[in-house]
C-alpha cells in the first residue's frame, strides 16, 4: 500500500459543525491575531515616546478607516480571547464539561465579548467627542 492510498480517519469536515468546535477554533485564531495587534501596540507606544510628530502619524494611521477596522478586530479578538480564556480556566479546574453547560458558557462568552467590545467603542467615541 503506497502512502497515497492508505485509509484515513474521517476528516474534520465530515462532522456537523458545533458551536463549541467553532468557538474552540476562534480561540486559537483570535490568539494568533492578537500577536500583530500587540506589535502595533508596541509601535504606538514607540511613536508616543519618539515625539509629537511620530505620535501624530500613529494617531492618523489608527484614525483611518483601515486603522479603525484593525483596531475593532483587535478589540474583539482581545475580549473574545480573554472571556474564552476564563472559560478555559474553569475547564482546567474541572468545571463545566457537560455538553449543555459547555454550550451555554460558549454563548455567554460570545455575549460578553460582544458587550465588552461595544462598551469600549462607545466609551472611546464618547471620550473623543464623536
Amino acid at each position: 500500500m503506497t502512502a497515497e492510498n492508505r485509509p484515513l480517519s474521517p476528516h474534520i469536515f465530515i462532522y456537523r459543525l458545533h458551536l463549541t468546535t467553532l468557538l474552540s477554533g476562534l480561540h486559537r485564531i483570535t490568539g494568533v491575531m492578537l500577536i500583530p495587534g500587540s506589535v502595533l501596540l508596541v509601535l504606538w507606544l514607540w511613536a508616543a515616546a519618539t515625539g509629537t510628530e511620530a505620535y501624530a502619524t500613529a494617531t492618523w494611521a489608527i484614525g483611518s478607516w483601515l486603522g479603525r477596522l484593525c483596531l475593532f478586530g483587535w478589540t474583539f479578538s482581545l475580549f473574545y480571547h480573554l472571556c474564552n480564556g476564563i472559560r478555559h480556566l474553569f475547564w482546567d479546574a474541572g468545571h463545566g464539561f457537560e455538553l449543555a453547560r459547555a454550550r451555554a458558557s460558549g454563548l455567554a462568552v460570545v455575549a460578553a465579548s460582544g458587550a465588552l467590545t461595544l462598551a469600549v467603542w462607545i466609551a472611546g467615541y464618547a471620550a473623543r467627542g464623536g
Partner: protein
Amino acid sequence: MATRFTLGRVRGLGSAKEGVHHWWMQRASAVALIPLYLWFAFSVTALAGAPHAALLAWVGAPVNAVLLIALIAANFYHGHLGLQVVFEDYVPHEGKRLACLLVSQFLSTLFALGGALAVLKIALGG
C-alpha cells in the same frame, strides 16, 4: 516505581518535574493578563483623541508605567507560548518548526524589550 524500565532506574532517569511548565506558565500569564488588559483597554479608551501630552502624562505616571511594562512582558510571553503550540501542531518538518520557534522567541523578546523601553523613556522623561 515498578513500571519503570530497569535501565532508566539504573541511570536514575525519571521525571524532570518540568512536564507542566509550559502549561502552567501559559495559565499564570493568562491570569495576570485578565486584569491588566481590562485596565488597559478602558484606560486607553478614555484617552481616545487626547493630545500627545495627555498620553505622555498617563503612560509616565509610575503605577501606569509599571503596569504597562508588566502587561507588555506577560503579553509577549503568553503570545510566544501560544504560537509555540500552533507551530508544534502545524509545522511537521522539524527543522522548519525549530526555525519558527526561534523566530517567535527572538521577535517576542525584541518587541517586549522595545515596548518596555518606550514606556521607560516616557516615564523617565527622556
